[in-house]
C-alpha cells in the first residue's frame, strides 16, 4: 500500500514538473513528445520487494536499454525497449514520430530481468536481429540471454540456444563486431558481478574465470557449419568475478584496422582496453595507454571530440556536479583505502567522468576536468552525436538513481543503531535511502576541448532516473532526436526542432555477411575539417544505435572528400559528395590501405644510459595534514650536470629521496660509469630536492650544493640541512662535506655571482614550513665570503612557498636580477642594485598561481631577457579567476596550535571548501559540532563566512589568479606582458623548463617537463601531458613542436637538464619515483 502511494507522489511531481517546463520550451532545441502523441507508452517501472532490491542485488537501479534500428527495412528506424520488471517491447516507426507496439504480433517473448539490448544482423541476411541480455543464475533467476532472429516478415524467432549464445549469468550488454575480420559478426558479451566487495582481493583475481560474472568473447563459426564458439580464454579476455562490467565500446582506437574493445568496470577493478593483436588475440593495455580512469566506471562512448581524426573515449562515473549534493555524497576513497588498492595491483582511478583524448600514439590524456564534463552525478549512458549539426559532435549523458547509496548521512546516521533481532528489513533499509531525480545533461562542444552545459538552453532539463539512450533521425527531417529509457517514468522522446546545419547520413554495404559494414571507418573532409565515424552500434548504456554514420556539416556546401576504410584492409575515396541526404556506399575502386608511417620520433633514447631510479619514501603528508592539496614531501629528485673530474665531459649528479643515496654518473668515452661516493652513502637519509654544481672556492673544480627538503621533519631538524660538498681532486669525501646551518624545507638553489666579486653566491628557495601547509616560509640568499663559505645575507628574504628561481637581467642594466616563483604568490622580480637585491620586488600583477618552475632567456631576440613560468595547469577541478578566485584561508580554527588550511573554490556559483566534510572534521574536530550532519553542511550558505566565524581572531587569506603556464615578454622598460603558453602545455603542472640555445632556424627550443602524481586524491593524478616541446621564433610566439606522449614517454617529471655527450646536446629527464632517462632531441626531423 505504501509503495503505491509513494509511486503516485513521484509521478505527480514529475508531471507538474514537466508541464511547467513545457511552456518555457517553446523556442528551444528539443521538444518532449508525450507517450500519448508518439505511442511509446513504455515505462521501466520498478517495485522493490523484500527479496529483490538494491541491497540484495546491487545493480537493482541500473535501469534498462533501448535499441534503434530498421527491423523491417522500410527506411524508418524502429525502437526496442528492455524492462527490468516489465516486459520488453518492440515499436514500429510509422513516420511522423508515431509508433505502434508490435511486441505481441512480432513474437518477441518476454525476458526476465532484462538489461542491455543490441540490434545486429547476426546471421548476415540483411535484416536486423535483436539480442537481449538478462540477469540469470542469481537468486532464483533462471533466464538466459535471448537472440531474436528476424524472420523478414515482421516476426522473430528466439534462437539463442541454436546459435550458442544462450548464456545465463549476470549479463549487461552485448556488442556484435568482426574482431577476426573474416566477414561475419562475432559477439562480445559484457557481464557484471555480484561478488561481495567485502574483501578486496589482489588484482590477479582477474585471471580466474567465473561462471556467472566476467566477460565472454564468442567467435562466429556459422560459415563453417558451427555456432558461436566461446573463445574467451584463448583470445586473452579476462572473465573473472571482479569484472564489474557496466560499459562496453568497440572502437579501433589505434587506427590499425583492427577493432579494439573498451570495458568500463565498476568498483576497484581497472577498466580494460583490449588492443586487437590481429591474430585472434587481444592484449589488455589499459594501464599502459591510459594514465588513469574513472573509478566507478559506468557507461562509455567513443568518438572524435577534438577534430584531430583520432577516436577519443568518454567514461562515466558518479561525482555530483551540484555543490550541495556534492557536500553530502561519498566520493573518493580515503587515502588508506586507495593505498590498499594500489598495493593490490589496481591502477589509478578517480571518481569522475573521464574524457580520454587520444594522442594517436597509444596514449590518452584525461581532460574531462578541463573540458568541464567531469561531474554529472550517477551517470549511466554517454552518447556522442552532433545535436546542432554544426560539425562538432556533442555529448549527451543520462543519469539519476532512485536511491542514492552514497548519501553520507544514510551511511553514517540514518541507517540504524542496532542489529540482530531489531534489524529492519532490507526493504526498510532501502526506503531510508534518499533519492533525487536530476536532469540528463547535454554538453555542447565549443571546440578546443571545452563543453558548455546546454541542458537548460536546449530544453532538456527534465528531472528523471534515466539509463539507456539512443540518438536517431526518427522523423527523417535531417537532425538527430533522442530516445531515453527511464525508471518509473515514460520513455523520453526528444524531437530535435532546433535549427540544424547541413548533414550527410552514410550507410555502408560491404557485400559480405557483415551486411551493414560494422567496423567501417568513415572520414569526411569538409570546410577544412576532418570528422570521423566508426560503424559500431553498441553505444551509450545497455543500448545500440543504427549502423549509420550521421555527419553534421554546418555551413559546408559539400563534402570535399569521404574516405571509407572497409573492414579489412581496403579503402576508397569519394569526392565532392552532395549533402542533406542519405548516401549508400558500396565497395568500388578500392585501394590497399596504406597506414601512415609514424614520423621520426622527436625524442629517442640516448645510447648513453643513465641507470637510475628515484624511489620516493612512503611518508604521506595527509597523515598529518588532511587538508593539504598536494604532498610537499614528493619534491625530488635533485639533478645537476657538470664536469666533476675535469676531463672535459659533463657528469651527472642525481640525488635521491629519504633513504636513497645520491649517485654520480661520470662520463667516459662509451657511456657513464656509476659511482656512489662513501659520503653520499652516509648522507642517504637526506631527501635531495635540488642540486647545482658551483666552484665555491674558486679552485678551478666544481663543488656541489645539494638542497635538503621534505615535509616530514620539523624545521630545525638536521635532516633539513643543505649540504655543500667540496671537490678535492675530483672526489667528494666525508671531510669535504659541510652541513649548512639553515634547516628548512628547501626547494631550489640558484647560483650566481650577485655582487660581482668573482665568487658564486646562491639563492635558496624554501618550499614550506613542515607540517603547516600555507604558512609562508622564508627563502634567503647565501653570500660567498671569499673563503669558500656561504653566509646568509640577513638583509634579504623572500616570504612564500617557493618552488623555483631564475637569475636574469630584468632591467637590462648588465647585472643579474632574481625572479622568484611559488604557490599563492605572484611572479616576483627582485632587482639587483649595486650588488645587492632590493627588498621591494616588482610583482607581475594577476599572476598569483601555483608556480612550479621559471626560466629566463631572450625568447623574441630583442636583446632583453624574457621569462617562461610553469604553473599547475588548467586540467584541475580547482578553477580560478580574478572574480572567483581559489582561496586559502589559514587560521588555527580550533586553537590546537596547528594552523588549519582551508581551500575554497567556486562551483556553480557557490564558494565552498575543496576538502570534504570528513577531511575538515579530521583536521578541525569542532567542525563536527558546527555541522553535526552532512545535510546541515550541504544546506549551509556562505561557508567561508561560517568557517571564519568559528575563530574570528586572526586568519590569513591567500588567492590564486591563474593556474595557466605563461611566458612573459620583457618590454624593456621594466614591465612584462603575460601570454599563455599554447594548448597541451596547460594540461599538467609544468615542473621544469629547459631553454636551449638559439637554433639555426632562428627559434629558441624549449622543453617542459610536466605532470604531478603528488596531488591529493580529490585533485587526482595529473598525468595528461608529461612534457612538451616548444619553439619560440624571433617574432615572439611559441609554437608546439611535439610532446612526450607522442614519443611514448610518461611519468612525473621534475628535472629537465641538458647534458653534452660527444659534443652533442642531449636531454636528461628525471622523474619523481621513477627512472631517469637521457634522450636525443631530433630537432631536424
Amino acid at each position, binding site marked *: 500500500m505504501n509503495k503505491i502511494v509513494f509511486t503516485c507522489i513521484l509521478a505527480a511531481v514529475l508531471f507538474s514538473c514537466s508541464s511547467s517546463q513545457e511552456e518555457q520550451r517553446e523556442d528551444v532545441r528539443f521538444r518532449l513528445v508525450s507517450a500519448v502523441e508518439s505511442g511509446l507508452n513504455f515505462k521501466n517501472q520498478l517495485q522493490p520487494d523484500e527479496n529483490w532490491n538494491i541491497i540484495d542485488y546491487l545493480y537493482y537501479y541500473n535501469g534498462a536499454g533501448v535499441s534503434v534500428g530498421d527491423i523491417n527495412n522500410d527506411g524508418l528506424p524502429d525502437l526496442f525497449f528492455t524492462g527490468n520488471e516489465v516486459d520488453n517491447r518492440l515499436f514500429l516507426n510509422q513516420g511522423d514520430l508515431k509508433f505502434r507496439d508490435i511486441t505481441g504480433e512480432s513474437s518477441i517473448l518476454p525476458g526476465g530481468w532484462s538489461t542491455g539490448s543490441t540490434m545486429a544482423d547476426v546471421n548476415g541476411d540483411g535484416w536486423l536481429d535483436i539480442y537481449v541480455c538478462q540477469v540469470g543464475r542469481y537468486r532464483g533467476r533462471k533466464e538466459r540471454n535471448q537472440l531474436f532472429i528476424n524472420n523478414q516478415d515482421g516476426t522473430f524467432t528466439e534462437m539463442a540456444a541454436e546459435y550458442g549464445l544462450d548464456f545465463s549469468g549476470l549479463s549487461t550488454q552485448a556488442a556484435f563486431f568482426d574482431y577476426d575480420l573474416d566477414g561475419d559478426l562475432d559477439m562480445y558479451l559484457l557481464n557484471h558481478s555480484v561478488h561481495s566487495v567485502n574483501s578486496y582481493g589482489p588484482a590477479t583475481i582477474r585471471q580466474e574465470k567465473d561462471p556467472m560474472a566476467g566477460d565472454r568473447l564468442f567467435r562466429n563459426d556459422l560459415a563453417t557449419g558451427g555456432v558461436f564458439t566461446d573463445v574467451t580464454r584463448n583470445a586473452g579476455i579476462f572473465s573473472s568475478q571482479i569484472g564489474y562490467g557496466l560499459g562496453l565500446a568497440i572502437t579501433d582506437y589505434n587506427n590499425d584496422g583492427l577493432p579494439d574493445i573498451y570495458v568500463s568496470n565498476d568498483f576497484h577493478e581497472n577498466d580494460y582496453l583490449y588492443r586487437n593483436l590481429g591474430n585472434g588475440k587481444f592484449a589488455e593495455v589499459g594501464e599502459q595507454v591510459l594514465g588513469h580512469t574513472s573509478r566507478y566506471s559506468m557507461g562509455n562512448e567513443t568518438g572524435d571530440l577534438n577534430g584531430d581524426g583520432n577516436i577519443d573515449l568518454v567514461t562515466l562515473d558518479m561525482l555530483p556536479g551540484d555543490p550541495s549534493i556534492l557536500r553530502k555524497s561519498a566520493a573518493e576513497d580515503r587515502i588508506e583505502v586507495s593505498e590498499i588498492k594500489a598495493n593490490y595491483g589496481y591502477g589509478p582511478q578517480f571518481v569522475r567522468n573521464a574524457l580520454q583524448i587520444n594522442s594517436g600514439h597509444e596514449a590518452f590524456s584525461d581532460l574531462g576536468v578541463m573540458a568541464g564534463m567531469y561531474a554529472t552525478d550517477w551517470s549511466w549512458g554517454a552518447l556522442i552525436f552532433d545535436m546542432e549539426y554544426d560539425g562538432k559532435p556533442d555529448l549527451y549523458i543520462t543519469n539519476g538513481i532512485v536511491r542514492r547509496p552514497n548519501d553520507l548521512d544514510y551511511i553514517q546516521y540514518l541507517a540504524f543503531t542496532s542489529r540482530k533481532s531489531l534489524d529492519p528489513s532490507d526493504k526498510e533499509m532501502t526506503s531510508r535511502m534518499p533519492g533525487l531525480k536530476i536532469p540528463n545533461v547535454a554538453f555542447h562542444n565549443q571546440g578546443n576541448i571545452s563543453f558548455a552545459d546546454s541542458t537548460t538552453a536546449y530544453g532538456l532539463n527534465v528531472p528523471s532516473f534515466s539509463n539507456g539512450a539512443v540518438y536517431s533521425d526518427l522523423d527523417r527531417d535531417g537532425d538527430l532526436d533522442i530516445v531515453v529509457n527511464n525508471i518509473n517514468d515514460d520513455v523520453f522522446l526528444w524531437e530535435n526542432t532546433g535549427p540544424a546545419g547541413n548533414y550527410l547520413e552514410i550507410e555502408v554495404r560491404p557485400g559480405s555477411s557483415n551486411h551493414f559494414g560494422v567496423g567501417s571507418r568513415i572520414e569526411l573532409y569538409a570546410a577544412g575539417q576532418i570528422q570521423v565515424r566508426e560503424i559500431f552500434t553498441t553505444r551509450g548504456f545497455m543500448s545500440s544505435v543504427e549502423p549509420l554514420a550521421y555527419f553534421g556539416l554546418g555551413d559546408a556546401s559539400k563534402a570535399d572528400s569521404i574516405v571509407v576504410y572497409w573492414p579489412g584492409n581496403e579503402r576508397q575515396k569519394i569526392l565532392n559528395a552532395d549533402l542533406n541526404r542519405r548516401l549508400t556506399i558500396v565497395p568500388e575502386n578500392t585501394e590497399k590501405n596504406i597506414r601512415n608511417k609514424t614520423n621520426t620520433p622527436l625524442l629517442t633514447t640516448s645510447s648513453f644510459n643513465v641507470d637510475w631510479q628515484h624511489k620516493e619514501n612512503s611518508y604521506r603528508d595527509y*597523515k598529518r595534514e588532511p587538508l593539504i592539496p598536494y604532498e610537499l614531501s614528493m619534491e625530488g629528485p635533485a639533478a645537476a650536470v657538470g664536469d666533476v673530474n675535469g676531463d672535459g665531459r659533463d657528469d651527472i649528479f642525481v640525488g635521491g629521496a629519504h633513504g636513497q643515496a645520491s649517485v654520480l654518473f661520470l662520463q667516459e668515452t662509451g657511456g657513464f660509469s656509476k659511482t656512489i661516493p662513501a659520503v653520499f652513502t652516509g648522507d642517504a637519509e637526506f631527501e635531495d630536492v635540488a642540486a647545482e654544481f658551483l666552484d665555491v672556492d674558486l679552485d678551478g673544480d666544481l663543488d656541489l650544493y645539494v638542497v635538503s627538503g621534505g615535509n616530514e621533519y620539523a624545521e630545525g631538524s638536521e635532516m633539513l640541512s643543505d649540504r655543500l660538498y667540496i671537490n678535492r681532486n675530483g672526489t667528494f669525501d666525508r671531510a669535504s662535506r659541510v652541513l649548512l646551518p639553515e634547516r628548512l624545507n628547501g626547494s631550489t638553489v640558484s647560483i650566481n655571482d650577485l655582487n660581482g666579486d668573482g665568487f658564486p653566491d646562491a639563492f635558496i628557495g624554501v618550499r614550506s614550513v613542515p607540517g603547516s601547509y600555507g604558512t609562508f616560509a622564508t627563502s634567503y640568499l647565501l653570500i660567498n665570503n671569499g673563503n669558500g663559505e656561504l653566509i646568509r645575507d640577513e638583509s634579504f628574504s623572500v616570504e612564500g612557498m617557493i618552488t623555483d628561481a631564475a637569475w636574469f637581467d630584468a632591467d637590462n642594466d648588465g647585472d643579474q636580477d632574481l625572479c622568484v616563483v611559488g604557490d599563492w604568490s605572484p611572479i616576483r622580480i627582485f632587482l639587483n642594485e649595486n650588488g645587492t637585491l632590493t627588498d621591494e620586488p616588482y610583482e607581475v600583477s594577476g599572476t598569483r598561481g601555483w608556480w612550479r618552475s621559471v626560466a629566463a632567456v631572450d625568447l623574441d631576440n630583442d636583446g632583453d631577457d624574457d621569462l617562461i613560468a610553469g604553473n599547475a595547469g588548467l586540467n584541475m577541478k580547482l578553477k580560478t579567476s580574478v572574480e572567483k578566485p581559489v582561496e586559502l584561508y589559514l587560521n588555527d580554527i580550533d586553537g590546537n596550535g596547528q594552523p588549519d588550511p582551508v581551500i575554497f573554490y567556486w562551483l556553480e556559483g557557490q564558494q565552498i571548501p575543496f576538502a570534504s566534510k570528513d577531511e575538515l572534521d579530521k583536521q578541525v574536530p569542532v567542525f563536527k559540532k558546527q555541522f553535526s550532519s552532512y545535510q546541515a553542511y550541504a544546506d549551509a550558505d556562505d561557508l567561508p563566512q561560517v568557517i571564519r566565524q568559528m575563530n574570528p581572531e586572526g586568519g590569513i587569506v591567500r588567492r590564486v589568479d591563474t593556474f595557466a603556464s605563461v611566458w612573459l615578454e620583457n618590454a624593456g622598460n621594466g614591465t612584462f606582458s603575460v601570454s599563455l603558453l599554447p594548448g597541451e602545455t596547460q594540461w599538467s603542472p609544468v615542473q621544469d623548463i629547459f631553454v636551449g640555445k638559439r637554433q639555426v632556424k632562428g627559434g629558441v627550443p624549449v622543453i617542459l617537463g610536466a605532470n604531478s602524481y603528488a596531488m591529493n586524491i580529490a585533485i587526482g593524478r595529473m598525468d595528461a601531458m608529461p612534457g612538451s616541446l616548444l619553439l619560440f621564433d624571433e617574432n615572439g610566439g611559441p609554437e608546439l613542436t611535439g610532446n612526450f606522449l607522442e614519443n611514448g614517454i610518461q611519468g612525473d617529471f621534475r628535472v629537465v637538464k641538458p647534458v653534452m655527450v660527444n659534443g652533442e646536446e642531449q636531454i636528461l629527464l628525471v622523474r619523481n619515483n621513477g627512472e631517469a632517462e637521457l634522450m636525443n632531441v631530433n630537432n631536424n626531423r
Partner: protein
Amino acid sequence: MRLKGWLIFMIGCAGAVMFSCEEAPKNVDVSVDYMHSSMQNLTDVIVHDIFSPPVAARIYAYPSIGAYEIMAATDSSYRSLAGQLNDLTSIPQPEGEVDPEIAAVHAFNLLGKKYIFSEDRVMAFHDSIMTDIRKLGVDEEVYTNSVNWGDAVAAHIAEWSNLDNYSESRSFMKHTVSSDPDSWQPTPPAYMEAIEPHWSSIRTFAIDSADQFTPERPTAFNVDPESQFYKEVMEVYETGKSLDEEQSEIASFWDCNPYVMNVHGHVMFATKKITPGGHWMGIAKIAAQLDNADFAKTVYTYALTAIALSDGFISCWDEKYRSNLIRPETVINRYIDEEWTPLLQTPPFPEYTSGHSVISGAAGEALTSIYGENFAFVDSTEAKYGLPIRSFESFRDASSEAAISRLYGGIHYRPAIDNGITQGRALGNYIVDKLQFREE
C-alpha cells in the same frame, strides 16, 4: 599512605563543617533518576556521533567527575578528588544557598555538551529536565545559585580537561601502516585507519603514566605451524568455526563496536552501538539502582567507573601502538583461509592487548570496590540494541566473560585476553587503592 589519607580527611572535614552552617531548607528532592537519564542521554549522543572507545571513555569521565566534585563538596561523607587526580584543583565555592543535585545535573550536561558533537541533542535534554526540576517547586534563588555554581564547576572542569593534550593530539601524525609481516594492517570491509595512535599522550587521571601497567610481551609472530603464535592463530580460527550458541551470544553481547560498516555493493551503512566503556557505564547504573544508591553514591559510582575506564584505555592504547600487532583476521586471510571472516567485525586498531579485556578488568574492580565481591546482577544494557540480557554472579564474572568474548568473536588471540584482563585488574585495583572517595 595512611598518613596522607589522614591529612586529606582533615581538610575535607573543615569544608564539611563550613557547608553545614549553610544548611538549606528550601531544597527539593531531585531524584537520582535525573542523573541516570542524563548519563543515558550522553550515551545515546556518543553512539549517534560515533566516538571511538578511548574517546568515549574520556567523554564519560569529565562530566562524571564534575558531578561528583559538586556532591563531594556538599556531602561530608565524600572527599574531593582535587589533588588526587592529576592536575585537578578544587572546584569554585557556591555563592549563596544551593541545591547540589541541581548543580550536579546541570554541570554534568554542560560538560557532556562540550565533548560531543551534537550539542543540540544534549541541550534539548538538559532543558527538558531542568524544566521538570523547576516544576518541583524549587526556590528561584536557590535554583539560580545552583545553576550558577554548576556553570562555574563545569568551567573549572573544562579548563582542567583542556590541558589533557586531547586537542593537541588531534593534529598528531596518523598511524603509518608498516609492511613488516607482524604489523597491524587495516581490516575489511572499511579498511579504516588505526584510530588514536597517540592516545598514550593523553594525561592520565589516576595512574602515574600510560606505561605503568605494561603487560607481558605478546607471543612473537611466527607462521611456522609448530610455533606458539601459529597455535594461537589456529585457536582463534578453530574456535570461530565451531562456536556453540552461547559462545556466539557472548561474543555478540560484548561486541560493543560503536561503528560496524555493512557493505552490500554500492550500499553501505553503519551499524552503531555503545562502546565497551558505554556498556560498563550501563552496568554502573544497574548496580547503583539495584543498591538503591542515593544521588551522591550514584555519581561516585559513575566517576570511579569512568576514571577506571579512561585510564584503562590509555594504558591499553599505549601497549597497542607499542606492539602494533597484526589482527587474527589478517593473518588467517593471508596464511590460512582467504575467505574467513570473524563473527565480529575487526575494530580498527592493533591487536594487543584486548581493549575490552583491559577496561572490563579495570571497571570490574572499580565496581567491586563499591558494591562488593558477590554482587549479582542482570545486565540488560544491550537490550536496546536487540541483544538478550545476561546474568552475572559478580562484576569480575562479567569482566571475565567480556574478555573471553573477544576470542569467540574472532578478533583477539588468547594472550591479549589473559594479559589484558591482568593488566586491567591491576590498574583498577591501583586506582581503587589510590583514590579516596569516602571519608573514613
